């Protein structure tokens, strides 16, 4: 049983015991005298050496490149705030819309409505023409 499991582990994970599932790592030390397992271990080690030779480095400029792509202009930031990509942030456009309504409302209140009779002198003359000729009732 242990022999078969060790053979499977070597076939799947190779000779780096630290890469094996934790609960299986102790198995290898139990069967170091097993010749077949030792042969499989050496075979796996040979393949691992070849795999280890394929080393790659990462591009050191990537961080700066990615950072430059996420740096947003003020207009973009405002747009992103106004049109968020999550429903959880839907309160943002709601607040923006409410602010616009409130602004319009406050402007509307402040504007003084001119009297239709006193808007200009022509209108005053026009309305004066309807006035009674005698002032007897005064």
């Amino acid at each position, binding site marked *: 049983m242990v022999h078969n499991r060790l053979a499977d582990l070597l076939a799947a994970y190779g000779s780096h015991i630290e890469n094996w599932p934790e609960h299986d790592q102790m198995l290898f030390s139990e069967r170091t005298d097993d010749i077949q397992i030792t042969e499989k271990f050496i075979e796996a080690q040979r393949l691992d050496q*070849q795999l280890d030779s394929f080393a*790659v480095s990462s591009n050191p400029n990537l961080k700066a490149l990615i950072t430059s792509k996420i740096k947003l202009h003020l207009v973009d930031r405002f747009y992103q705030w106004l049109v968020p990509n999550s429903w*959880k942030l839907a309160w943002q456009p709601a607040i923006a819309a409410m602010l616009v309504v409130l602004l319009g409302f406050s402007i509307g209140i402040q504007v003084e409505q001119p009297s239709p009779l006193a808007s200009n002198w022509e209108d005053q003359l026009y309305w004066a023409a309807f006035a009674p000729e005698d002032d007897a009732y005064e």
Partner: protein
Amino acid sequence: MVAVSKGNQDAFQQLLHVHVDAINRFARRMSGNSHEADDITQETMLRLWQHAHKFDPRRSKLTTWLHSIARNLCMDHHRKNARFTPLEERSDDLCKGATRGEPETRGPEINLHTIQTESLVHGALLGLPERQRSALVLSYYQQLPNQAVAEILAVSLSATESLLARARRNLKQILDDSHGT
């Protein structure tokens, strides 16, 4: 991640610092050339920035999520290009530097034999079916636990082990054949 999802660039910088190199090395091993790998890495990290709100820490770890995105992008590139770009387009910087874990500089002693061996192994990896290659790179080089590899490949733990065994067996066969020719 919560801060990133709210557009906090400093929080994103921290995540970028932790994950970008690992994702880049994964993409370089999975793809045929460094330019393509760099594009995949950028796209992966930009998706993290744009879709951070979709990440659910209860479902997976961030490393698993990022490798999953990167693998999907590798497959998209593969589909677009019909096949991965062959080794001749692979730039020298792909061969230099790191080990299978953390990056390190190997120095000027890299000889022709080493580069040839690296090219052979890379060629053999590219010769594997995609799922086997993914399993091997994620488990052996990226050193992700079995649970994470299984999650990324959307298979069971036993299927992951079986994929790994097949990948190693096929890789050995390809390498033996190429040494024989």
